[in-house]
């Protein structure tokens, strides 16, 4: 095994991966909360359609998803052109583009645990809140959400982890630009391609270690909250 010079380690891909995962998780949480709540409370006929659409990113191969995002958000297309020409926002080959793509890719992983959590809530408890004069929004924020802490934690963790591990979509939509879209998974892939296996091993080990620390921290937090009796 070659002696590896840790000074030459480029941390940019790791920082990018965690930045991407963090931002995506945050944005998806805000977007998914109303959707998951709506799906859990409604009996409308459009519910199965909405649920199927939300679940699509799970079944679509990442490279296919990446390709379609590339085509739809390209500056040559109607949508991408609008954003780039009128708003100056680049949706492909940019970090912003990766965030958008990741939000599509990881959407079901945020929505489904939240929806599941809401659906298992005691309906009477929610009704008691309405009878206390609270709106649906107040009920969501003050009663529903605080009572699904385990589902919430699951949703956040899985979305974060899923985005960190993202590869096919990022490869397609990102263009592997160092410091902007070359995330850890892509960097490691390229090291394997050029047969720099030593480097690939080190980077992979670091990736696993960092992710493990993040996950461990969350699970410990979850556990202590449970002990206190808050959960």
């Amino acid at each position: 095994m070659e002696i590896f010079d840790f000074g030459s380690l480029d941390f940019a891909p790791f920082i990018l991966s965690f930045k991407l995962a963090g931002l995506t998780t945050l944005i998806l949480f805000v977007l998914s909360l109303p959707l998951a709540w709506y799906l859990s409370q409604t009996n409308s006929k459009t519910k199965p359609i909405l649920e199927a659409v939300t679940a699509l990113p799970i079944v679509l191969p990442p490279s296919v998803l990446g390709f379609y995002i590339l085509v739809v958000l390209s500056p040559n297309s109607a949508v991408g052109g609008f954003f780039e020409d009128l708003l100056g926002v680049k949706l492909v080959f940019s970090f912003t583009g990766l965030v958008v793509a990741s939000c599509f890719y990881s959407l079901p992983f945020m929505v489904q645990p939240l929806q599941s959590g809401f659906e298992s809530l005691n309906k009477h408890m929610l009704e008691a809140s309405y009878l206390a004069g609270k709106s649906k929004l107040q009920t969501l924020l003050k009663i529903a959400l605080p009572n699904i802490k385990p589902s919430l934690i699951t949703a956040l963790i899985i979305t974060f982890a899923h985005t960190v591990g993202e590869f096919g979509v990022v490869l397609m939509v990102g263009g592997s630009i160092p410091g902007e879209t070359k995330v850890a998974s892509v960097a490691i892939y390229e090291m394997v391609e050029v047969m720099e296996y030593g480097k690939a091993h080190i980077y992979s080990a670091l990736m696993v270690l960092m992710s493990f620390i993040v996950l461990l921290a969350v699970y410990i937090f979850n556990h202590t909250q449970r002990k206190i009796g808050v959960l």
Partner: protein
Amino acid sequence: MIQIDIHKNLHGSQGDMDLDVKLEIQKGEFIALMGESGSGKTTLLRVLAGLEKAEGDIRVEDVYWLKKQKMLPPQQREIGFVFQDYALFENMSVEENLLYVNNDKVLVKKLLQMTELNRLAKRNVKSLSGGQKQRVSLCRAMMNKPKLLLMDEPLSALDPAMRTKLQDEILKLHKTFGTTTIMVSHDTDVSYNLADRILVLDHGKIVADGTPQEILLKTSTITYTLCI
């Protein structure tokens, strides 16, 4: 005064039936709503609370809670509801459950003292016993000084000792606040002790309406109510 004239199609455990209820309730009355399982008692309560749709009219003093099919949302009806499964807010303490409804700290103190829960005020509700939870549920229902208190079999899950204690507290609260009350109950003793009027529901229709003495003591209705 509360005037009720409602109609609803039900698909219940006894098959399809129509809930057809027309009655008048005076302010301060304590009504026990009795009848077989599946006769529509809980549904009637939920319709009054605005938790389920129905056609017809519900008039409370001068306000229409239901007019033809136009429903006033539950948020705007001044109702207290005691659910059979308590339905407390499990992320909050006893105190917080009450303050959530109404930030009136004085009322909270008063209610907790009346139901002897003052020492448990800061405890999270998940750690309480069944009897304690039911008392919290009762207090919470009273917090917004409701025009109508609805209780769905509030004592059925409790042991006999607790049941007696809670009956006393319900009576105490009713004497203090004079809230118009409708309580669903299977228990003739409880109904006799608490109510000044009994309604019997069968297949969605009121088949008996009178004082506890009239309904529960008359020989002909004894047979009927003993079958319940």
